[in-house]
């Protein structure tokens, strides 16, 4: 059996080795090699199977073996074709579309045949020094916040560069430093067939809290902190989205590490819970590093003493929220315009807010110079500052601000 496999693979390799590189002047030779390769790939198994049938004296076994062999060849050929054509399976339509999509998906899920992911640079020349306190990461979707957080936590390795904790390289001491870092991912799940207490008790054990009395106390405190004590014995599958989010937060409170990384933890929480959790993080940041990413600029301004703005994998700004606001001072304008002029103003200026007010529209504009005669300078907010930073980037790219 092993000899058969070696013979088959050696024949194929021989063809692939001597196959010339495709070029306009070698068309005939290319075609001959292609046909030869196909004959070896598809035809060679047939005499081998006939020989095996004679050896085994069992037709059924030989047919079964042959079926698996040809299926493997077919899957490989389909995978190669999908790779070569760059087919996006989910966009396939036409005759037997559903069947083809299911088949292609199945082929792609086979190990060794699945399409290799094309390298993508998510982060570019990031250099940050983060000390104790609350550090905010803000940026639009796809800016690289989650990738950066995953690298900081050791979930993803970086292809270049390094992350150090107190001069200890994370890549070299990944397992040891893991105990010092707590991570709440953006998309986390729970074991829904467990109750809240069971789930947290299990997580506490995994985090190394083996003393039952201590574990019970910690689980109780964590549940109290996220206001889920009343639902402690209910199955998680009966919880709403916000309650599940709070279970995830409670889980990070079980064993507080030196570095706490939370990726958009306030998404999905109601305003009261959001403020409560933000305050809780601020409390925790007194004697540890808390890295906090969010889309909600207001969360950063009211809780972080330092922040970084990421855009397309690069750091656009590092400093305090006040510094960021200061950068925008003198560039935020407010004016009351007739309702009919709104579209015209939008075309010529970067309108960040507009609100109907007593028959007119109150607009808030970001501009270096006075955009309208009636516009007055106003004190910038954190949101203005963020939009200003984003707007400058768009302007540089030649897009409409």
């Amino acid at each position: 059996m092993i000899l058969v496999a070696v013979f088959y693979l050696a024949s194929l390799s021989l063809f692939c080795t001597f196959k010339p590189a495709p070029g306009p002047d070698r068309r005939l030779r290319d075609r001959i090699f292609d046909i030869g390769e196909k004959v070896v790939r598809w035809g060679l198994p047939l005499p081998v199977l006939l020989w095996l049938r004679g050896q085994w004296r069992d037709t059924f076994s030989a047919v079964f073996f042959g079926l698996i062999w040809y299926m493997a060849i077919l899957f490989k050929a389909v995978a190669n074709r999908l790779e070569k054509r760059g087919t996006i399976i989910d966009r396939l339509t036409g005759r037997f579309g559903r069947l083809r999509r299911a088949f292609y998906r199945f082929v792609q899920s086979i190990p060794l045949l699945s399409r290799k992911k094309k390298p993508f640079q998510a982060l570019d020349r990031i250099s940050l020094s983060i000390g104790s306190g609350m550090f905010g990461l803000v940026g639009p979707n796809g800016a690289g916040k989650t990738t950066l957080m995953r690298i900081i936590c050791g979930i993803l390795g970086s292809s270049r560069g390094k992350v150090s904790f107190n001069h200890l390289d994370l890549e070299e001491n990944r397992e040891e430093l893991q105990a010092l870092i707590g991570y709440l991912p953006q998309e986390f799940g729970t074991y829904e067939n467990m109750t809240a207490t069971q789930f947290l008790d299990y997580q506490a054990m995994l985090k190394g809290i083996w003393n039952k009395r201590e574990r019970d106390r910690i689980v109780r405190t964590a549940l109290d902190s996220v206001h889920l004590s009343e639902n402690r014995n209910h199955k998680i599958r009966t919880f709403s989205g916000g309650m599940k989010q709070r279970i995830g937060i409670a889980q990070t409170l079980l064993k507080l590490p030196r570095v706490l990384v939370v990726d958009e933890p306030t998404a999905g929480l109601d305003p009261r819970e959001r403020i409560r959790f933000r305050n809780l993080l601020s409390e925790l940041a007194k004697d540890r590093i808390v890295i906090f990413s969010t889309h909600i600029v207001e969360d950063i301004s009211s809780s972080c003493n330092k922040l970084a703005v990421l855009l397309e994998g690069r750091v656009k700004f590092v400093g305090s929220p006040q510094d960021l606001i200061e950068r925008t001072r003198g560039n935020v304008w407010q004016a009351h315009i007739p309702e009919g002029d709104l579209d015209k103003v939008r075309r010529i200026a970067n309108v960040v807010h507009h609100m109907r007010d007593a028959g007119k529209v109150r607009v808030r504009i970001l501009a270096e110079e006075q955009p309208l005669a009636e516009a007055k300078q106003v004190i910038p907010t954190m949101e203005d500052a963020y939009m200003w930073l984003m707007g400058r980037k768009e302007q540089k790219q030649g897009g409409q601000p």
Partner: protein
Amino acid sequence: MNRIKTVAAFLRYNALHIFGGRFVVFLGLAMGLFFLVLLIGLVGRGGTPNSERLYNYLLAPGILLVFYPSAYGIQRDQDTRMVETLFGIPDYRYKVWLTRLVTLYIIIAVMMFALVLLCRITLADFPVWRMVSHVMMPVIFLGSLAFFISAQSTSGNVTAVIMVIFLMFFWVLGDELQDSSWFLFHNPFRSVEALRSVLWAQTTFYNRLYLVLGSVVATLFALLRLQKREKFI
């Protein structure tokens, strides 16, 4: 006492997760399958089964129980989006996945013990410990192999397909391979003539050695693969 309680709770939580909340269903199915096979054996072949037949009857529920958790375990953690959280736990490979695998084997061994004991009380004098230890060998090997394939492919469905092909290969070639030490379903209780008994014992020894080595290697490689967190996100 506190430590025992904690370990028991830890195993219980793992058991809750291993079968995706369907522990009782799987246990019932495995029991049902065993009793069905036993009944067919009793009625069809007539008379009390011997150790050789009981070994074959026990393999079916064993494989049924080990298959789903080991093949779909990692994928379920990905589906429930728990995998990233688990990666944040120090020594997660041992604390989470190895513990679950061992818990699974303990559950199956306990069930096998109960079934053989029941057969010993009601049918004939079967060697309980020897039977359980021998049945567990291929079960552990298949569990470890499924765990290894699922760690490589990160897909439960792919693992299931490969495992089915693997099992069918041994099923189809059963007649050719049954005297070989490489046969997965090698039955150490098979009745052989006195002259061949020494040879058979040797074949059994090598078969068990291969299964144990295969299980250890598959588990270690799976755990090594789980260290590459990037592949699972």
